[in-house]
């Protein structure tokens, strides 16, 4: 999930963000597929916790798994508060991993 606040109206920049997010997503999917897990990837733009809950609802998942600490410069507090919101609002169980 890319945060829209980080995006300028410059479509080239949006495209760049999307491409890099999609390729990171594909790498992660390939890694999991290598372990024999069936994977679907979804890339969304918008408010992270809203999008996470929306996708979880659409795919009717039984569990949401997410990290509580950002990597690659993502501020700690940001991902932390996303997890907090998701934990509080999710209708299904949430597994948070430090």
């Amino acid at each position, binding site marked *: 999930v890319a945060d829209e606040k980080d995006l300028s109206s410059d479509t080239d920049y949006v495209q760049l963000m999307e491409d890099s997010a999609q390729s990171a997503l594909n790498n992660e999917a390939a890694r999991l597929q290598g372990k024999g897990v069936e994977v679907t990837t979804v890339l969304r733009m918008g408010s992270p916790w809203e999008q996470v*809950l929306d996708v979880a609802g659409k795919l009717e998942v039984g569990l949401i798994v997410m990290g509580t600490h950002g990597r690659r410069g993502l501020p700690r507090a940001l991902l932390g508060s996303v997890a907090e919101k998701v*934990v*509080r609002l*999710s209708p299904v*169980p949430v597994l948070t991993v*430090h």
Partner: protein
Amino acid sequence: LIRHLLIATDFGPASERAQEAALDLARTFGSGVTVVHVIKPLPYPYPILPSESARQAVSMELDRVAAIFRAEQLNVDATLEDGPPWERIISVAQERKVDLLIMGTRGRRGIPHLLLGSVADKVVRLSKAPVLTVPPWRYSDRKTAGTELARAVMALREERPIILAISRGALSVANEVASALETSMDGLFVRLVECDGQAVGAVCEEGTCLFDEATVSKLAIPIETLGTVIGESRRLCRDESLRLRGARWIGDVGDRTVLVVTDSISSPLPAAASAKVLRAMGARRVVVATPGGTFAALEALGTHVDATTCLDRVREPAGIDVLYRDAQELSDAEAAAMLSGSSASRPSS
């Protein structure tokens, strides 16, 4: 993989589903289990710790929870802690080197930053080990949901509404509403028509059909296919009605207020189809009441009925799947008994 798990409980409804999740996982992995309850110190000027008898009562509750795990031949230990809950929970988890912490949350109904909700927040943020947070079920069963729904529609009592359940699952809900409003209820059966897993319409037992024209044209469903699916849905709907209500038709609704009750609304179509039938039968006002529904479906339904009452609005259908802890619907015999005017559906005076 999970050698040892910790379940933090407050013994309340918010912890019940978490306990069940813990039991499921512990059984699957043969995990050792630590059950924790934390007694929070009361602020000054109250006594710092609760009385010995209160502590004993809590200790018995803890034993009761531990016994649930022990009954499954799992290795259990239970510990009663004093202090700030989040801190004690994390500290016990570290001491016992648990692989997973499990705890309930208050769910969407919770008062933010109060009690367990904020404890879960803190534990999620500060635990080194993974944390599984489990939201509570919204209602323990349909009957309980009916009792809550009845309170929300009490104002309709003056209108002496006719109460109609539109599905088997709605019967237990409607029965409670009817008894609180001191009236009887009946069933008018409606069924969703689906094509390739998409809702394209709804049929009523007497034959009326309502289409979602946008979806029908978007899916470009051939007219023959549509005809077949509708025919099949009609047949199933009529069969169910015959089994549950028998051959008699519902009573006269002419110039009356009708309260249509469902057990959940994730598509506007079934309730809208019932409204179409009831209007054709001369109903003056059609009001729909449900324990839970999605925002989108309720909004779409708004144009078909005079009013809607929904206790719990959720964003997506997944929220509907977890409305009822006990998802069991009535059997044919139970439903038939309820609809034949047995004691259950008679007004309680």
